[in-house]
């Protein structure tokens, strides 16, 4: 058998970061008590009617613009019908023929992955199985989703994982999605099939549903590809089916499903007029779009950051924004700010959805970095001051003064301190002069001790070397 290649397509359901639902005024907040964020509209009561959420349209268009989609000037909502308790109207409002975003692409490393579409739809409610009962929480029902469908252009599980990470970061950066996988704000279904390398036709595909982490998507795809290879290798046929990821056995397993192909009886939703987006409105929304990760990357590289720095600082949009704010608040070079933030600040930053909580505000950190840049304090002292700032909420200058941490920079005073140490340790001086130049660290340490850390270590080292190398 010739070598097989994997053909992978991903469907991502990204929750749009709106305050209210897609067709009513109920809140979308996660974690509220069941059925407290509901109304006649999202419960499908008789006589209730959907009214589109303008903000959801804006976020959908924003995502479409960032993904290079063609924005539908006249798109439409359709009804997708099926009976299930989590679907209160007996249909889901989605988009079939005329999605709000068509086409588009996403850059993943060196490859560009094409997109089919990114359309709007409402989320279903959540079924919870309690004993032999099924209970339904309608808080999630009607929450706005953007379904982003890739073309089957991904070729490996690792690439699929990278695509998801890239997509999530992009949507978070433009404020469209909070990236919260645990809360289900960013969900993924994967389609995978195999075909002989170099051929065009697609093999029978399997859909893997409900995989709740990027790593599991990769593992599930790896397991599924291995399974399909084994099936084909033993002369079998891959069946078109839906499978789930079983973490325990690290395998994909068939999901209970209908035998017959589902007929969703799509038709245009007569409660919702076509969405017509005038150029002016789209332009206004585009103008409000935050900087995209690719542009930010270019800007940061030009400012002297490394690829590694960009990766670390750009991993969360609020962290990136914080870094930019710190740079704006200090005279320190961006690269040095990046080093400081990565080594001393990031460890103390917590993130929650699109929010990040740094230990001190950007302006306060800028003040501290200015002191460091001006050599008023040294790096060790900066670390100590940062801790105190976070604890006490007091500014860097005030703390440096209070703690007496300003560096001794007067050359005469430093030389005097060094001379005092050399005089007090004649044996060590002799060893140094016999060639044990590593002893320099000892002298610097002694001076730092007597100066209570205030002396500039670099100046101390220079003075000590000069004095030790002076002819006696």
């Amino acid at each position, binding site marked *: 058998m010739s070598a097989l290649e994997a053909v992978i397509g991903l469907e991502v359901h990204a929750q749009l970061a709106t305050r209210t639902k897609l067709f009513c005024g109920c809140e979308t907040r996660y974690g509220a008590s069941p059925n407290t964020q509901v109304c006649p509209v999202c419960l499908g009561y*008789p*006589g209730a009617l*959907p009214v589109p959420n303008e903000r959801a349209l804006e976020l959908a268009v924003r995502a479409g613009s960032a993904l290079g989609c063609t924005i539908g000037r006249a798109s439409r909502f359709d*009804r997708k019908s099926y009976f299930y308790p989590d679907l209160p109207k007996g249909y889901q409002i989605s988009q079939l023929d005329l999605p709000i975003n068509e086409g588009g692409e996403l850059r993943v490393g060196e490859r560009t992955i094409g997109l089919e579409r990114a359309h709007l739809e409402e989320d279903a409610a959540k079924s919870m199985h309690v004993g032999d009962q099924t209970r*339904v929480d309608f808080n999630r029902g009607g929450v706005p989703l953007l379904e982003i469908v890739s073309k089957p252009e991904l070729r490996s599980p690792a690439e699929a994982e990278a695509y998801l990470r890239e997509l999530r970061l992009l949507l978070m950066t433009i404020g469209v999605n909070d990236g919260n996988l645990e809360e289900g704000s960013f969900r993924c279904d994967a389609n995978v099939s195999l075909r002989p390398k170099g051929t065009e036709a697609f093999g029978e595909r399997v859909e893997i549903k409900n995989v709740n982490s990027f790593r599991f998507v990769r593992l599930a795809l790896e397991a599924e590809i291995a399974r399909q290879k084994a099936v084909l290798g033993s002369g079998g046929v891959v069946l078109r089916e839906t499978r789930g990821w079983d973490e325990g056995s690290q395998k994909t397993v068939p999901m209970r499903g209908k035998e017959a192909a589902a007929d969703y*009886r799509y038709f245009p939703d007569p*409660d919702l007029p076509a969405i017509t987006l005038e150029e002016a409105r789209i332009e206004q929304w585009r103008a409000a779009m935050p900087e995209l990760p690719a542009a930010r990357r270019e800007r940061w590289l030009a400012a002297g950051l490394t690829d590694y720095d960009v990766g670390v600082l750009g991993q969360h949009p609020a962290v990136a924004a914080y870094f930019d704010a710190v740079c704006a608040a200090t005279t320190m070079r961006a690269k040095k700010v990046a080093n400081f933030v990565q080594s001393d600040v990031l460890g103390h930053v917590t993130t929650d959805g699109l929010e990040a909580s740094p230990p001190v505000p950007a302006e306060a950190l800028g003040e501290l970095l200015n002191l460091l840049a001006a050599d008023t304090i040294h790096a060790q002292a900066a670390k100590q001051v940062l801790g105190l700032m976070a604890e006490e909420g007091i500014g860097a200058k005030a703390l440096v003064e209070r703690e007496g941490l300003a560096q001794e920079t007067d050359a005469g005073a430093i030389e005097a301190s060094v001379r005092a140490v050399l005089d007090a340790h004649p044996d060590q001086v002799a060893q140094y002069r016999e060639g044990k130049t590593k002893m320099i660290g000892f002298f610097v340490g002694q001076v730092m001790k007597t100066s209570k850390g205030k002396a500039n270590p670099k100046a101390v080292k220079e003075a000590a070397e000069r004095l030790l190398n002076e002819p006696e």
Partner: protein
Amino acid sequence: MTLEEHIAAIVGGAKVRERAEAALASVGDDDLDAYLELDRERILADADALDARLARGEELPLAGAPIAIKDNLCQRGTRTTCGSRLLEEWVAPYDATVVERLREAGALLFGKTNLDEFAMGSSTENSAFGPTKNPKDPSRVPGGSSGGSAAAVGAGHCAASLGSDTGGSVRQPAAYCGVHALKPTYGRVSRFGLVAFASSLDQVAPFGATVDDVARIYDVIAGPDPRDATSAERAVESGVNALGGGVEGLRVGVVRPCLEQADAPVAAALADAAKRLESAGVQLKDIALEHLDLALSAYYLIAPAEAASNLARFDGARYGLRVEGDDLAETYRATRSRFGPEVIRRIVLGTYALSEGYADEAYVRASRARTALIRAFTSAFDSVDLLLLPTAPTVAFPLGERTGDPLAMYAADVFTVPASLAGLPASSSPVGDDGGLPIGAQLVGRPFEETTLLRAMEVLS
């Protein structure tokens, strides 16, 4: 009692309560079964509250007039059954926008009126709670689906009423009961709180004993509503203010093929009506509207398709009737088997019309026919301002005559569905009778030109 008379009486010092008691007494005198709910205690309490509002000097355009509401419109705290077992005990938790507007204007919400189940029917015989009778002849149907609301006004119980018109459900019963009705342009009146039958066709509409009464209710209920995305964002020209404007110079197209299709007495009454318009200054013109023959079949695919979807929510899970089965699918089946035969017929028809393999021949083709019909209307309105045709091909038929023959029943809508499919404003006015059974003339106007219709209705009355 007309709305005009009621208002005059209140201005003259009468109490809303006295009027309400008289109205309730008048209902007690007949066996028309126009109401599914008539809550005497609640009505009298509301009447007292209205008297208090009037005593405080509140400006109430409807002055506590008793207005009956079709039972597919939500009225907060009141059962809204839609004539169905599935909603028999369902109490609406909110007011429809039109109900809210009536309350604000000082209407006394009178009773909830009978209808064909979920507004599907042309005789009110499809109500799960028994038929309403025609006030002119209790052995005959009042028409439908808003038969209860038409009969309530026809019998003089209340000053006016609200119905809903999807394919003629207000115009046809108005014709059968000898009252006036105006179905506004699609989008002119909010559908929020109207339990949906076919969302692209449904429109709330008033019945009145006079054109003036219809105009007064229209003025209260028309206008944009942020809770209905299909409601039109445009200002409403007052119907009442337009009355008395006459029809001098208007061009009216008489849809000749419809007159030929109608029973002879209906055609004769229409010819008289046309003459009356002519003598009032109208320029008449015979017109043959293209694609009219497609309307009924297109309607009976599009409306059931939307209905099948709209009625999917009645699954027993959250509200209304729930009949337990052994598992989920059985519960759905057992609950939904309580729909009446006509509703089930339309759900099945509509489901087919949207199913893979059938949709192109059914729903999609019907939608194309609808588009063609809309174009035909648009081009007709290049040369005329209004169209005149019968509301229904016959007068009210005897109870039970067509219940076993759905196609004969559907034929009662043949002249009303075209304007529904095109979303156009259309009215029905009593213009004669056949042995005491009223005959209605239908006028159809350009989108949002309700005031033109009202002026012509006035001349016909």
